[in-house]
């Protein structure tokens, strides 16, 4: 272990968490992230890869489609490790780049089922909820910031945003959740 102490994207030693009504927003710094792009003329990997607009889990990884032949790969709990090397062991011959600290992950959970999540999402992003069931993932701007939005479950979202703009994205998401409570 290095003798340096990391900081979370929001600038504190511990991740931020806040609850507004049924919604809880959690900064999630422990999830590793890498990009995976298949090279030309190489055989497809043994992993089950999701298609456009989808994410799915395989071999302990969560793969998010980001473009033709491209995925972002979540490696839960592996943020402190060399995720590119880990992933290269599973997908040899691909172009893999460590992305863990390029992004910040906010998990948004509902204690009251899908409705609060959907009310939250319709204020956050231009996403058609009827086409955004669990298993869906999309790239969408939120308050002018590029994000990846994952519908992890009926009552749970994962939102990946640019790490340097973590504070602005948190402000946006936190504000949406807080205003939903006030509005009733």
């Amino acid at each position, binding site marked *: *272990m*290095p*003798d*340096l*102490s*990391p*900081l*979370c*994207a929001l*600038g504190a030693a511990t991740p931020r968490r806040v609850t507004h009504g049924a919604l809880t927003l959690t900064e999630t*710094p422990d999830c590793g992230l890498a*990009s995976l*792009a298949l*090279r*030309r*003329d190489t055989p497809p990997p043994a992993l089950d890869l999701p298609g456009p607009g989808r994410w799915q889990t395989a071999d302990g990884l969560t793969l998010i489609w980001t473009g033709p032949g*491209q995925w972002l790969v979540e490696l839960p709990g592996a*943020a402190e490790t*060399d995720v590119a090397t880990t992933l290269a062991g599973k997908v040899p011959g691909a*172009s893999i*780049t*460590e*992305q*863990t*600290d*390029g*992004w910040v992950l906010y998990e948004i959970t509902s204690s009251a089922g899908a409705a609060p999540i959907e009310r939250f999402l*319709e*204020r*956050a*992003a*231009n*996403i*058609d*909820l*009827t086409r955004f069931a669990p298993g869906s993932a999309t790239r969408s701007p939120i*308050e*002018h*910031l590029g994000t990846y939005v994952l519908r992890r479950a009926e009552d749970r979202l994962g939102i990946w945003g*640019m*790490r*340097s*703009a*973590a*504070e*602005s*994205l948190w*402000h*946006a998401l936190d*504000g*949406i959740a*807080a*205003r939903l*409570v*006030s*509005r*009733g």
Partner: protein
Amino acid sequence: MKRLSGGLIDRSQHLSFTFNGKRYQGHPGDTLASALLANGVQLVGRSFKYHRPRGIVAAGSEEPNALVTLREGARAEPNTRATMAELYDGLVARSQNHVGSLNFDLLAVNDLLSPFFAAGFYYKTFMWPRAFWEKLYEPAIRRAAGLGELSELPDPDAYDRGYLHADLLVIGAGPAGLAAALAAGRAGARVILADEDFRLGGRLLAESDLLDGAPATEWIEAVKAELESLPNVRILTRTVIFGVYDHGIYGAVERVSDHLPTPGGAVRQTLWRIVAKRAVLAAGATERHIPFADNDRPGIMLAGAMRAYANRWATGPGTSAPVAIFTNNDDGHRTALDLMARGVPVAAVIDARRGVERQGDYRLLPEAEVVGTQGRLGLHSIRVRTSRGNDTLQVGALGVAGGWNPNVHLASHHRGRPVWDGEKLAFVPGQGGPSGLFPAGACAGKGSTAEALADGLRVAQEALADLGFAAQAVPLPHAESRQDNTAPIWHVPGKRRAWVDFQNDVTVKDIALAHKENMRPVEHLKRWTTLGMATDQGKTANVTALAVMAELTGKTIPQTGTTIFRPPYTGVSLGVLGGGDTGAHFRPRRLTPTHHWAKANGATFVEVGPWMRAQYFVRPGETHWRQSVDREVLAVRAGVGLCDVTTLGKVDVQGADATVFLDRLYANAMASLKVGMVRYGLMLREDGTAYDDGTCARLAEDHYVVTTTTANAGPVYRNMEFARQCLWPELDVQLISTTDAWAQIAVAGPKSRELLTRLVDGFDLSNEAFPFMACAPLTICGGLRARLFRISFSGELAYELAVPARYGHALMARLMEAGADFGATPYGTEALGVLRIEKGHAAGAELNGQTTGQMIGLGKMVSSKKDAIGNIMSRREGLAADKRLLVGLQPVNPADTVVPGSHLFTQGAPRDLAHDQGWITSAAYSPHVGSSIGLAFLEDGANRMGEVITAANPLQGSEVAVRVVPSHFVDPEGGRLRA
């Protein structure tokens, strides 16, 4: 005053409100306008130009007159239509646009001077002297002619926005809209039903007609209950659809909390972007008036509005005196009947048509016109011209019914042109409007209740059929099917002023003047007279004005023209469009990994695009920024400095063809770059102009990291993707940005190697093992993965060390701690700028889009042995012949300041464009040189070393004698870099 019977107000509750400080009572269900009328208040404001006393004209969003300032303090909102302000307990409103009290407005003198204030008067009058316009005329005119005033305090409210998706958006919840929503809802389509009112029903709420023999509210409530029970239907009341945008996107503002004293923690308004596959426009119609002499007195209203106040709000028109109706159609008679049914005395119905008959027990004056009115602050009497002579009627209010204009506005967006229906005497939606938008009901010219219901159903079925929904017919109630039989009587000719546009004080005379001045095309008419502008956008005026102009020109109305309606349909607050974030969160910002460290260590920050970068670090005792910057610069040159350079763009490039790809992107050769080495690279635009420079590090045979300038991180990445996907899709290359992933810290200065030696895990940093322009992955501080690049922007021995961003803060602290004995000093962008100017490195100020490689002394880098983007074009005559070169400048008198932006002239030459020799791109005070220095592009710069020239700054009237020197002020041989 006593309220009438009936109405849709809750008499069990009382709401207290004030208008101009006086306390009144109303009920839930009231608007401010209905409550004022119920309290006998007719006078509510002063007109825009002439400061004429004005009252409530309409009952909806078309209101031109009754503009008030609602609320107080920072929440004061000027120009709020009293007809749209839902009453709440404690509401505070005041009138606007008067000096002195509302009753005795000193600026009413304007009305006496009206002959001087005709349309266009200020275009002709206030022309001389020119300087007076901004300082005197305009402020005076704006003060005299205006509406409400802003509080000039920050908006205390929150706003939000959101996105909704629907198969069918139904705009308007009157009979057509409700029928459409019900049919679509039952068919299973996703429906959004929006209405600007706080209650569903539209015009049905204002009428006394029965549906299936029962009050219309019974049918409305039943439909509402069913729609609310359907999970696929969403009802948005208090929501105006203000515009139709591309691809079926509709702009909507929901007034979430405007009906409450304060929003509490909730938002005030929400901006919705509704993505709808189809939309039914059921926006209804707006009644028009008939201009006659002095037709603007308080108490003169639209007859349909008068009827709405009686039926929906149980109030007469603010007077207990008798009421008259002036009409050119049957609908005016309907108002008389409804008023009488509610106990309002009707003095007469004045019908301009021939051969009309009474429809009830009232006095009818056929073939008659209103030709004058009396009453200073409210209507007292009207003069009527009949076939038997003139007559004066003592009345407290007059309802005017001039026919109905379909609300074609949204159908006119996307340049849809309304078409004239000569039978209905109205513009109806034409072809060419927004695709997917289907007008229905009164806004399509089908204005009886029975027609509107049937049309709403039909149009919904048609709209949904395209989407594959088989919407079944829903049973519709039996409803009235009257026709108005409107006659083409547009105004009453006369000598006195007759108002067409109340809000802008435009009269029939003004239109006649516009005609005389040849301002006849409708767009000229509008701008010349200001007709149809401001908050009501001419909803009650535009068509009448066209008719008057048509009469003057002898053309038909459609020949005269139509006006184009643009968004927004009604006024939309800038707060809701802006989203409500102000201050630090006005726009998103990016923070460097060492931001919090820098903040704790005295940094002043500067915006660099979206980034916040440390500009300099103030130490105790430093009182001027230059002291901090000079200290930082000298610390780098003498010991070691630390600067967060994370903001430089980083693009990870991999793939079998990565080398070929980069060789085509960079003007200079990259194919020969060895693994473990870095090369400076120059990128050109397609036209051969330099646009970005940076470094390219080769980490493996098929793996590179490209760095870009901070400003061009996005554009370079975008252009690389364009090249990869579109120019050379055959290449096997993969790209991804890693700018945020790595915290990168420049460690610069003669002590940098020694400092880094204390952090790396056994890595050999010697000049032999890790020479200038080397790079390597390594670990530091006990196993942390990192990347080290030996590159220099400062001209000193320097490195850039990258670690995962989460460790940036700790790394900076560790470097400072480990380098304390070397005088390790953090430095910001100012010192960075000074260091690079001293070294003669080009940056954004030099790469301004006009610069060639040779101008910055890098002409030889542009390889002629290979092709790359821009290389061939860079050799075209116009660029290749450019003799301007980046040079250094030093003032002859060391106390002088070199001002960036100054233009260069040969000494003694005239200071004009023909003799311009170039310009100063960057300048700074160099503590190393001991004076101000600059970089400049100078004609034939290569051959002018030592020459003294003039740097002229005509904006400030200064001139400085400067000596041309090489652009490297520090270590021109580059020995320090390679030490």
